[in-house]
């Protein structure tokens, strides 16, 4: 077998397992952070400071009864959570976790795949994950679930466009869709007179970054865009009828999506593994953590949008802004290249 391919496989397994482990502790982090923000203690009974809580939760969900509603579309009902869960970590395949390292004499690249349309691949996988939610909502034969699925479909169509377009500015500047290439370009240093700044795209594309941030929250169905589940209106929406581990698949998918889209945002806008001292995966982790903290902070702070307001925000506010951003970036790029 090709040694390169083998090392890619091994790295993929490592990334997958790290993601699953992180996801479990992401739930812990969220609960602890939310508890701190809401003036309470959070999980503290299972293990030291509640550190075993995610494991206890996992075991609990595994031994719960798996209920399939009588009128549900059985096959789709069983398939939907798997679809969400499988597609969530697949998107991480294109995230570069650093330069290549040497392990036992073999050179191992710290990314699973460097494809030239990596960003496009990421968006495509991300939008496929929503099929799990739509199908789950439809197959439950429950009106709340159906409404959740409908909302999810509308939301993803709107925000997928915003998310994709917000990245176009970066693509114009970098001239590439490959994430490895985008990271490499950001590791250069800008000299603005006496100032020395990293060439991160957040500095040249601040508007796009803000829009990306909003669209990323909507893309992962997190508060204040958590309309598909909206527990106070739709009693959980698409996952109302799910129980046991099938239910948790949806949640695992949501948390993995959060981590992956944070890594993606950190890679595109914040320079990925680039840092002030000693570049490495720890910088990427720190940047992703900032994103995740923002997610959790948002959830504890703001109320939920209404369905029509969510659509209005996407089509009336964000879309024009992102188009203006693309236009400006395009002109500046042409001017910079001396073509205007």
């Amino acid at each position, binding site marked *: 077998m090709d040694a390169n391919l083998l090392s890619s496989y091994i790295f993929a397994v490592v990334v997958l397992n790290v993601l699953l482990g992180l996801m479990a502790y992401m739930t812990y982090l969220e609960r602890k952070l939310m508890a701190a923000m809401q003036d309470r203690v959070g999980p503290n009974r299972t293990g030291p400071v509640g550190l075993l809580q995610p494991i206890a939760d996992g075991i609990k969900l595994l031994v719960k009864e798996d209920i399939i509603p009588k009128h549900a579309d059985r096959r789709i009902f069983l398939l939907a959570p798997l679809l969400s869960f499988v597609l969530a970590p697949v998107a991480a395949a294109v995230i570069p976790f650093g330069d290549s390292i040497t392990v036992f004499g073999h050179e191992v690249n710290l990314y699973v795949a460097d494809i030239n349309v990596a960003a496009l691949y990421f968006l495509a996988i991300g939008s496929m994950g929503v099929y799990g939610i739509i199908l789950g909502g439809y197959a439950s034969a429950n009106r709340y679930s159906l409404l959740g699925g409908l909302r999810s479909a509308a939301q993803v169509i709107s925000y997928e466009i915003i998310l994709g377009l917000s990245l176009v500015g970066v693509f114009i500047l970098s001239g590439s869709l490959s994430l490895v290439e985008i990271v490499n370009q950001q590791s250069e240093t800008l000299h603005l007179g006496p100032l020395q700044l990293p060439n991160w795209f957040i500095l040249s594309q601040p508007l796009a970054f803000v829009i990306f941030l909003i669209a990323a929250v909507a893309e992962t169905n997190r508060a204040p865009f958590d309309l598909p589940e*909206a527990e106070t209106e739709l009693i959980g929406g698409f996952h109302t009828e799910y129980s046991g581990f099938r239910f948790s698949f949806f949640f695992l998918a949501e948390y993995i999506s959060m981590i992956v889209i944070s890594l993606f945002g950190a890679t595109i806008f914040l320079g990925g593994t680039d840092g002030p001292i000693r570049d490495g995966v720890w910088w990427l982790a720190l940047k992703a953590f900032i994103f995740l903290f923002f997610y959790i902070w948002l959830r504890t*702070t703001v*109320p*939920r949008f209404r369905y029509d307001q969510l659509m209005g925000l996407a089509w009336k506010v964000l879309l024009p802004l992102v188009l203006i951003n693309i236009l400006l970036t395009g002109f500046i790029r042409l001017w910079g290249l001396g073509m205007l």
Partner: protein
Amino acid sequence: MSLEISQGTPVEISEERALTDSRRQMVLNMGPQHPSTHGVLRVILTMEGETIVGCDPVLGYLHRGVEKLGETHRYSQFVPWTDRTDYVAAPSNNLGYILAVERLCGIEAPERATYWRMIMGELARLASHLVWLGTHALDIGALSMSLYCFRERELILDIFETFCGARLTTNMMEMGGFSRPIPDNLPGMVRDFCNIFPEKQVEYESLLSANPIWLSRTRGVGVIEPDAAISMSLTGACLRGSGINYDVRKATPYLYYDRMDFEVPLGTRGDVYDRYLVRMEEMRQSISIIEQCLDQMPTDGPLSLTESPYVIPPHDSVMKTAEDMQRHFIWVIKGFSPPKGEVYQAIEHSKGELGYYVVSDGTPIPYRVRLRTPDFVNLQSLPYMAQGAALADVVALIGTIDIVLGSVDR
């Protein structure tokens, strides 16, 4: 015998276009088990997409026959039952009933006890408004608010606990005043709360009042026109949010509310946001009333009308004198008989006008007890407000009426 499976008649295109509106509609059964109906309210919603075209609240899932219980128990035995109608503001319910019975008997509690009744009534209003704010914000998606509100509500419940030993169903008001002494640390606790609470309220408002999402969810949603509010006989913040100045504390003052200096906040547009502002201002006014009560209250003096035949004799004298022991025995075993007559006593509850109509036929058991609970009446504005609203608005509307199903169903 063979079963014949009938073939479905194919729908022709012309027929499909002629589908009536009702076939495009979906009926959604919200409740009685639903996280945002504040109890066991059931709302049958007819929807087109996410727009409500029909809304039909179904009540009675928590009906316990409280009024009938009032007609089968002695006057003083019914007080704990009033706790269980609106259980988030139990002292107010006690107060309304006790005031009604006291008026029937023609007695009035001593000054100090009356002031403490006002303090407890206003604290109950605050406790109820905090539950309203927390759950209302939670319904709209601001989930931290509920925890912040319950944190402050805990202080009020601690005051109740120090005062009477119970936190939720307090059963604290008694005929003719209070038979238990006021704990020494209680005025201090109430003062502390009055000092702490205003800055906490600023914290809530900083999270909500100017929040664009909160504004977009509440501004212009669930508008009640002033005429409609009157014709549905709404009271409380639902009425005052529409700009109509009616507060029982001002209109027909009871206790010492005529001695108090406070304002009745009024809304201008009658939407969810105005009702939110009205209730927030009411909380400020309540704090001011409590402070005025503490300032005006005589520090010493009787807490109970010990000589009245309608009042339970004080514990000390029951242990010492034969007359009081006999009186106590009769009071407990047989109860007291108010003179024949009927009385309607209304108080300004946190949710609106809470009225108790008590008819006495001269026996120790009331002939009729009728509760006019404010949220039962206010709930009829739900179909009015829900017309044309979105599904997400319905939870905001249920929150803004501020219902407690124990009080609606009784």
